[in-house]
């Protein structure tokens, strides 16, 4: 990467972050989702914060904050994908694209800068919510190690998942209307994460599982709040089992790498589509 490319990337990152983080919907959508979470996820919070709920056995810090991450990630990523869907196409819609494209700045570097900048801005409220809950938990149960686990979970589960989602949210609206993308994305998110594999073919529990089944299972040793769930690996009789090797630390890192490679491919595809339109 030449220094000029790095500077282009840095400039787009900064300005795309700035524009997105100031957008009201970037804060309102996650706020409403959290309200929803508090209403439907109340039982989980009670599990975590009220020891009496769990027969006097409070969940230990790791299980608690990882469990929290799964809930926050599963719910707030939906809004995250929807909020990013206009970012790339709006350059055309606002008619700013011609002046950007007439600069000597490399379009690929601008795209990556936009991806990281707008993605980071949209992730800020999610991280605020997650670390807010994790900090509350750490104080409430006097378990400072909870924050360490929260950071680790963020790094191996939330960030790779969001990078995966952001790549598609940015580029797919180049080939379909953004509202249609949002509908399809929500459907995909529920199908690929929630639907159990013996019901119908799904990406849940595979290496391409943006909710992070492999790292949850093999890196964080998380098996549900009650300790008897698994999050990755083959399901007897399900299709796509070739994508579900046994969860080990190696397959967990492999799964993170697969998410990032697929994300990079989506960005490269988007870049090619734009270049072709010239």
């Amino acid at each position, binding site marked *: 990467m030449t220094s000029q490319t790095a500077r282009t990337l840095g400039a787009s990152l900064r300005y795309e972050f700035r524009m997105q983080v100031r957008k009201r919907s970037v804060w309102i959508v996650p706020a409403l989702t959290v309200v929803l979470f508090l209403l439907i996820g109340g039982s989980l919070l009670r599990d975590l914060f009220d020891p009496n709920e769990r027969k006097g056995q409070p969940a230990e810090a790791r299980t608690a904050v990882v469990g929290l991450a799964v809930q926050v990630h599963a719910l707030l990523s939906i809004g995250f994908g929807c909020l990013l869907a206009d970012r790339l196409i709006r350059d055309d819609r606002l*008619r700013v694209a011609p*002046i*950007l494209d007439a600069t000597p*700045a490399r379009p690929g570097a601008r795209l990556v800068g936009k991806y990281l900048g707008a993605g980071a801005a949209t992730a800020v409220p999610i991280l605020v919510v997650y670390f807010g809950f994790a900090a509350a938990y750490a104080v409430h149960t006097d378990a400072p190690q909870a924050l360490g686990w929260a950071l680790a979970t963020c790094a191996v589960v939330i960030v790779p998942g969001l990078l995966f989602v952001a790549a598609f949210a940015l580029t797919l609206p180049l080939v379909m209307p953004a509202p249609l993308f949002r509908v399809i994305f929500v459907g995909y998110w529920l199908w690929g994460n929630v639907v159990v594999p013996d019901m119908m073919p799904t990406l849940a529990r595979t290496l391409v599982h943006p909710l992070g089944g492999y790292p949850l299972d093999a890196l964080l040793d998380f098996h549900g709040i009650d300790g008897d769930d698994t999050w990755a690996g083959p399901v007897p009789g399900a299709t796509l089992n070739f994508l579900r090797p046994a969860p080990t630390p190696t397959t967990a890192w492999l799964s993170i790498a697969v998410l990032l490679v697929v994300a990079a491919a989506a960005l490269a595809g988007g870049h090619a589509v734009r270049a072709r339109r*010239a």
Partner: protein
Amino acid sequence: MRIEISGLTKTYRGGVAALDGLDLTVPTGMFGLLGANGAGKTTLMRILAGLVRPTSGRVTVGGHDMSTGAGRTAVQRGLGYLPQDLGVYPDLTARQFLDYLALLKGVDDRTTRRRRVGELLEVVALTGDADRRLRGFSGGMRQRVGIAQALLADPQLLIVDEPTAGLDPQERIRFRTLLSQFAGRRTVLLSTHIVDDIAQTCGEVAVLARGRLIFRGTVDELTHRARGRVWSVVTDGPPPAEGMVVSALPHEGGTRYRVVAPAAPDPRARPVEPAIEDGYLALTTR
């Protein structure tokens, strides 16, 4: 920067031939581009800015071949471009927007960039509004932001597509003066429908029609095309049926019509001195 265009054709998807075998050389200095709506001016400018690839033909700018990526980037390093249909990011202030574009144009040094953005805001008379969001800018103010961004990196080639559309008369005159001062040893390619703007600034001019070159020469030569074809006639009857009525002014005893026509449109018509607009009309209305 000298622009050389030969056999340039652009056919859009759907089969519209916006440019049809265009040959044109643009020297340094101010150069005007005229032509009816849809004549292909914007298409030509978008090709020169590296935004659109031609269907066929050859374009070099300052010796750089626009058909290669390296050639386009080399041209873009010295390019200022003001599109006809300019947009801005509504959520940035004028100063931030210009700062962002300066960064993309490779003005890396922070102090230089700040100074340059400040100077240009001054040039387009927006210093007082520099820290307001662009969302609240009027059309003419946005256009001035567009002018400022085109001048950011001290371009050797400035392509401005109808830059004075939407400007008030003061700003329009200020801007065209600015353009002439700026031109010097650089190349400024100006397209407009305000023929007078070209007369006041450009040495040479090209006229496009349906994607082809129908005239290239000096402003005086263009004016000359109307010699013996501009008429003045006063009548209280209907306007002359022949030719193109350029103006109609109330006059004692009826209306005074100025008409561009190959022959006297009326026995009472007197020939008058042509202006550049008459030349353009004589050329494009037959």
